[in-house]
Structure formats: C-alpha cells, structure tokens
C-alpha cells in the first residue's frame, strides 16, 4: 500500500517545519474528522467519561445501549485511595422498546436501585447518542431522583455526535460546576489550590499533591484524580486553580474564575523543566509567603540532584535517537518535546487529537526544522511519517502501540494505559527508563525494522 498518500482534505491538518522560510502555521483543528477517515479520535461521551471517571465515590450511570458502558469499563488506570465505585460499569442497557417509548422510566428505576445498592455520594448520568435523539428528559429524571434520595444527581450531556471530545470535556465541567459551591469552605487556608486536569493515572496526583503540600500549600481538591464529591463541593474555597492538560479542564477554570473569582495558571507535570515551573509558578502566586518559594526551590534542587545523574545514564544511550509523538492533548506534546530533549532525543513528528490553533503555533515554535506537525492523524499518515523521518520511538496511546511494534519502533504509552507514573520528578525518571527500555530492547535485534529495510 505504498501508494497511500495523505488523505485528501487532510492537507490543512499537516504541517512540516522547513528551514529559511517564514511560515505561518494555520492548521484547521477544532474540526470533526473527515467522513471515511481512519481517525484515532473519539467522541463527546468519551471526553466526558475521561474527565469525570476518576470521581471514585460517585456512581457513573451510562444511559444508552450497552456498548458505551462496556467499552469504558475500568480501562483507565485512575487510581483511588479509598472507594472504587468508578471502576464498576452501570448501564440502562436501552433496548428497541426503550428507543421507541423512551428510556426515562428505566433510567429512574436504575438510579433508585443503584443508589440504594451502592450508597454513593453523588451520581453522574451520561447521555449517549440515542438519548439525544429519542429526547429523554434526563434533567427532569435527575432532579426527581435527587429530591427523593437527597444526593446530587447530575446529568452529563455527552451525546456522542454533538461535537468533538472537547465538547465532552465541557459537558463534564459544567456538571462539576453544579457541585462546586455546595460545600463549606470554612477551614480552608488562604494558601490553597485545586489541582485541575490531573486524573491520578498510576497515582500521579498523589505525587503532585505531595510536592504542593510540602511547600505548605493546602490542596482543596484534585479534579478529578482520586476525586471525592465532598472535595469537589468545596473547591470554590481555594485561592488558585492549577490546571494541567490544557484541553480538558480549562473551561472549568474559566467558569470558576468568573463565578468565584479564582484565578488559574496552566502547568504541566511532565519533565524536569515543566515540573519545576509548575511548583515555582504556584509559589510566585503566594508571594507574600517567601517560605513557600524557598520550599519549592528546596524540593526542586533535592529532586534534581537525585534525578540528574540517573538521567545522564539514559542520555548517553539515547542521544541522537528520534521520537514521534502522537497524543491526545497538545499541551502534553510541549512537555514531551522538552523531556525528550533532556535525554538527548529529538522529535521528528509531533501531533495531537485535540490541539487548538494557539497550541499548534506554539508547537511550531518549539520544534526543530523538518519536524512534521499533525492534527487528528490516522495510522497511514503516522506509519508514513515514522518511516520517512526514521523515528526510533513512538509515544502514543492504545491504538498506536501495535503499529509502532509492527514497524519495529519502540513505544511509550503516554495515555491512560500507562502503568507507572510519568508525572513529577520520579515520573521523569520512569519516563526515561521506559523509553530506554523500549528503544534499547534486545527484541529489535531479531526484528526487521523500519519498513523491513534495516
């Protein structure tokens, strides 16, 4: 299939940084994928599910046919330190008759049964594609059940076809907004933050939380990693919102700023540079307490002192190796580029599923010449550029992994199937180790590589 070129109509979502040219990058992102493409993207429901999933003491009921609940059953390693209701799969399993006569009754009974059985702190009800079509009034059902049971029952308007994954993030955020502001903020310190957009994959939120707590800052809530309803309810008591993963939670940060006057900063916890900056930026915000900045500096220097010599070992082996990045959010791509550089690797392909115009402009700035930048890519393109640019490593998610291995290229999962924390200083070590382990694996000596030619 060598003759497969770039998908027609895709030219505007691909960009190659060339030397000596003053190029304007104008990727048409924020669009839905072309009909007929083998897109790696998901839907609105997926976006909502990703954001709310880690709230561990709520039930998550998927209102629709069985598939949407089945495919999202415990597939994200968002770890909880206590309750684990989020790891179960609840569905109204709509049938033909429900599609004809409506599913409200089934939804009502399912909710009542669930709440009785599991005694959750709250319930999230996700609407799926056909709920949007058959016109179930899930808001009314939720109100009724909330009144009868006394717990918050929150509709999430996540009909799959009503936009992109990003719209799903927004729908999830507006459900969270309904909870925020309903708890007491009495005892909350002035030196306090919420951690937004950190989902505690492999326990990452715990690592980040510990750094901030060591700095003397109170973490009111993590949204939504290791999430608890009571913590969400009092999130409006924090002084600052610290937002990771630009796509998923910026809308919540903006809403909280508007409604509660809480400012926000954007951070990333991947790589030494960005991790350190995310501690310093928070410390700067609380500038009337210089001890916080002192503590931040102490943490960074202590961690870097431990980490640096370790990284040099990896750097020695990995210098000159080339990486391709294709992940969900663009913000993560920025950090990954820096993190890879710190272990001697360059980036030859950078792309995301959900980046926006600003993101891609910044990517262009950061990237070396010759780097290909893609929005909403597909397997043909990815394989083509990986081979052309002679990448040694692909960083991606579940659907990309086997493609990399078929090509004889190393792989690192930087999506929700990561098994070890990649955030924080320890995360940088883990990341370097994982990259090293895959790039230098002895399996490649047996494997035809890179199109079967090397």
């Amino acid at each position: 299939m060598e003759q497969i070129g770039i998908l027609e109509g895709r030219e505007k979502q691909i960009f190659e940084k060339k030397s000596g040219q003053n190029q304007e990058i104008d990727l048409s992102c924020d669009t839905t994928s072309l009909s007929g493409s083998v897109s790696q993207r998901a839907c609105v429901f997926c976006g909502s599910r990703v954001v709310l999933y880690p709230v561990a003491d709520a039930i998550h009921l998927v209102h629709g046919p069985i598939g949407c609940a089945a495919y999202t059953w415990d597939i994200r390693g968002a770890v909880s330190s206590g309750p684990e209701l989020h790891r179960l799969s609840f569905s109204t399993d709509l049938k033909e008759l429900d599609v004809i006569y409506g599913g409200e009754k089934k939804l009502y009974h399912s909710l009542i049964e669930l709440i009785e059985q599991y005694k959750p702190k709250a319930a999230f009800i996700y609407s799926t594609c056909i709920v949007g079509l058959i016109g179930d009034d899930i808001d009314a059902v939720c109100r009724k059940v909330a009144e009868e049971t006394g717990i918050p029952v929150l509709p999430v308007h996540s009909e799959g076809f009503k936009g992109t994954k990003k719209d799903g993030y927004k729908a999830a955020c507006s459900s969270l907004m309904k909870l925020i502001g309903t708890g007491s903020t009495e005892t909350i310190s002035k030196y306090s933050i919420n951690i937004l957009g950190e989902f505690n994959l492999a326990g990452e939120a715990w690592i980040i939380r510990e750094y901030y707590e060591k700095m003397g800052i109170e973490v009111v809530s993590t949204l939504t990693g290791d999430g608890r309803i009571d913590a969400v309810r009092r999130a409006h008591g924090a002084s600052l919102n610290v937002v990771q993963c630009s796509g998923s939670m910026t809308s919540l940060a903006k809403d909280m700023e508007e409604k509660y006057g809480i400012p926000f900063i954007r951070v990333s916890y991947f790589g030494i540079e960005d991790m350190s900056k995310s501690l310093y930026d928070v410390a700067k915000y609380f500038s009337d307490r210089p001890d916080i900045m002192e503590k931040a500096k102490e943490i960074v220097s202590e961690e870097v002192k431990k980490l640096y010599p370790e990284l040099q070992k990896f750097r020695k082996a990995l210098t000159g190796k080339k990486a391709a990045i294709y992940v969900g959010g663009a913000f993560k791509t920025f950090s990954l580029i820096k993190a890879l550089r710190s272990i001697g690797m360059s980036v030859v392909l950078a792309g995301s599923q959900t980046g926006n115009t600003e993101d891609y402009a910044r990517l262009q700035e950061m990237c070396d010449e010759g780097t290909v930048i893609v929005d909403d890519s597909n397997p043909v393109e990815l394989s083509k550029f990986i081979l052309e640019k002679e990448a040694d490593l692909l960083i991606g998610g579940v659907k990309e992994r086997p493609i990399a291995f078929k090509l004889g290229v190393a792989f690192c999962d930087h999506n929700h199937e990561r098994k070890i924390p990649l955030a924080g200083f320890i995360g940088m070590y883990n990341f370097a180790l994982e990259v090293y382990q895959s790039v230098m694996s002895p399996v490649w000596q047996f494997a035809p590589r890179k199109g079967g030619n090397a």
Partner: protein
Amino acid sequence: MLLRHTTKEVKEREGLTINPAKTCQPIGAMYAALGIHGCLPHSHGSQGCCSYHRSTLTRHYKEPVMAATSSFTEGASVFGGQANLLTAIETIFSVYNPDIIAVHSTCLSETIGDDLQQITKKAKDDGKIPEGKHIIYASTPSFVGSHVTGYANMVAGIADQFAVSTGEKKNQINIIAGWMEPSDMREIKRLSTELGVKIVLFPDTSDVLDAPQTGKHEFYPKGGTTVEELKSIGDSTHSLALGCISAEPAAIALEKRCKVPFETLDMPIGISATDRFIMALSQAAGVTVPDEITADRGRLVDIIADMEQYFFGKKVALFGDPDQLIPLTEFLLDLNMKPVHIVSGTPGQRFEKRMKEILVRAPYANFKNGLGADMFLLHQWIKNEPVDLLIGNTYGKYIARDEDIPFIRYGFPIIDRIGHSYFPSVGYTGGMRLVEKILGALMDRQDRDALEEKFELVM
C-alpha cells in the same frame, strides 16, 4: 475488594445492568469484516463507536485494527447520514484503497432511520464504487442483541451479498466460522487439510489479527477470505455453520440465496463437539478420518483419563458468549466437572434451547442469558454457591480476586493475557490446551492451599 458492594441476596432489577457480560453489535460486525481479505470495516455512526471498537479489539489482539467512521455530527443526525456515508465511501476508496468496504450501522444511524441497503445502492448507482471493488453492509443496531448478534449479522451479510450461484457445483464445503479466535480458524483449516477436504472458511481472521512482526504496518494484512472464495460459496456442496447463534444466520441466508444445504453444529470445543464436527465434515465430503486425527483424539482422551480424579466434581462458573458456552459446558460435563453457574448477556431463545439440551445432564445448574444476566448476578450466584473454578473473559478477574477462585481466561475480550490468538481451543488439540489450563489452575490452587504434610510432589 473491588466488588465489596455485591450482596448475596438476589433481587429483581428493573433494567439496570451492573458489569455487563456482553457489549454492543457493531464491534462484532467489525471483527467479522476483518476476516475478509482487503476489507476495511466502516462504522456508520459517531466517531467514538469506531474508536472504542478499535481500541477494544487492539487490547484483545495487540494488533493494529483498521476501520473507518462516518464521523457523525449534529447535522447528520438531523438530516440523515446519507451524505456522510457517501462522502466516506469516496474518501475510503480514493485514499485507503480497500477491495471491499463493509459498512455496519450503529444505534445512532439506526435511530435516525438511515437505510444502509438504500445508501449503498445509491453509491453503486452513482458510480462511487470503482470497478472491481465492493461494498457490503449489515444492520447492527446496538439496542438489539449483543456483539455476537452483530457478528452474526455481518457474516450473514457477507454470505448474502457475495455468494453467486453459477449453476455448476464446486467440490468444496463452506465452513462458516462462529465467533472464534484467529488461532481457532487456523486450526479448522488445518483439520480440513488433514481430512483432505477442500473448504472455504469465512470469515477468517488468521493472518489478520495474529500477524507477524515484519517491519511494516500492513494496512491490509495477508489473511482473510478472498472475494473470489466468497463468490464461490454459492456453488459449494454444503455449508457447516459452527455455532447456532453466530454462524447459522449466514448458512440460512446462503441456503435461501443459492440453495446450499447446511448443517448447524456447535463450535468444535471439547471432545463431543469436535467428534460431531469431524464426523459431519468427513461425511459431507465423503472422506475417511485419517489416523493422525484419530491419534490427536486419543491423546486428548489419554490426558483426561490420566488426570480424571482431579476433574471429578469440581464446580465451575462460566460466562461469555453462546457459541463458546454451549460446547464448553458440554466439555466440562464430559470431564466429570459440574458447571453450576452459567451467564451470558446475549439474549435469544435458540441459545436457551440448545443450552437446556446440554444441561439435561446438569439439572442443578443456574443458567441465565439476556436481560439481567450480568457479572453482578454471576457474582451473587457464586456467593450463594461457591465454585472451584471460574472461566470467562478478563472481566472475571474481579470476582476471581474477591472470592479467591482459580480463574481461566476464555472468551472476549481478554485484555490482560496473551495466547488466545495463537493457541486454538477448538479441535482435539484445542481440547488438550483447555484441559492443560483447567488442570494448571486447579492443581496450582491445590498446591497453594495444601498443608505441608499433604503438599504432594507427585500429582
């Protein structure tokens, strides 16, 4: 204790499903279509469906899974998805260049009333299907049946839309594969070769979802039933449908269309079902069973006889899909084990009827399928009557851990172990693998729990 909330007392539920023992139709249609050579499955619905199905199949096979989507938007769901599908067809042929597009519907496109037959016909009439290329379809609404139904519908679509009857019979037999692994399909082909019978097996995902590492990403791997073979199935002398739920509808479609007589068999899992399969195939082809196959059978019987005491009376809970559960239950009974709880999310009277026939030998067994038959119920049953072994897909691991039960992964999806795509469970050799796994699980447990003085070296 992830499932700490599961109560022992079983109460009727009004529609609520907790931890499903099934998923929706389209993924089955996608899997079936991957068993045609040069075919790109196409999901006519929102982007998420296609993404979820590809991810799930990728986790199960650890292989790239290619499929396209109509990428429904709000506009499409108001005005109908015809425009999206027609655009998709053009895009796919011009860019991905498959030999065949196999379109399946979703709950969304079904609810808005898109008619795949009409749209694909329009695509043909409008000249959107290049010369020598094909488009087939199957209606697979997610709110009917389960993933198994979707598989059955696509396989029936394949039979119905490819088969041609030339009037001249070919000396070949169709074997319609129920939902089984690539390894199983490979084994069915091997057995047929040993018998000296020319068969057309469809669908056939071997060499598609168990492809070797080559340094290339083959968008269309070398495996899969070819268009030529699929056209020829209308001229075959017989069809054998392996599975009354996932394969029989295709056999019926083929009989209607091309008058190919068929016989429905259980999937050849375990001795009895494999005996019936070998018998049926050899009779249909008029060949005698070669010594090598008889020897395989003998080896399986020999192992069972050797280890007979370890099977006896062991209670088993199993869950999964109809065409595996039926022969597997029978095999457990043949091993002198006790299948006490059986659950499948897949509805259907045909399934219930066949299961009841098998369960005549096990009047004590709890069996439920369809509505309310989920993993929560299975767990409750196990709490009420504990078992020695649990057999089912990866999602069984929660129950196995909470109740401390030896667990064998079997079925779909298996997303935490490998092996299923490489080592068959059909045929006599497949039976040997199953027996090895069962014994391994039971005897490891016996060793783990044995008192020191009873800790045996020779077993």
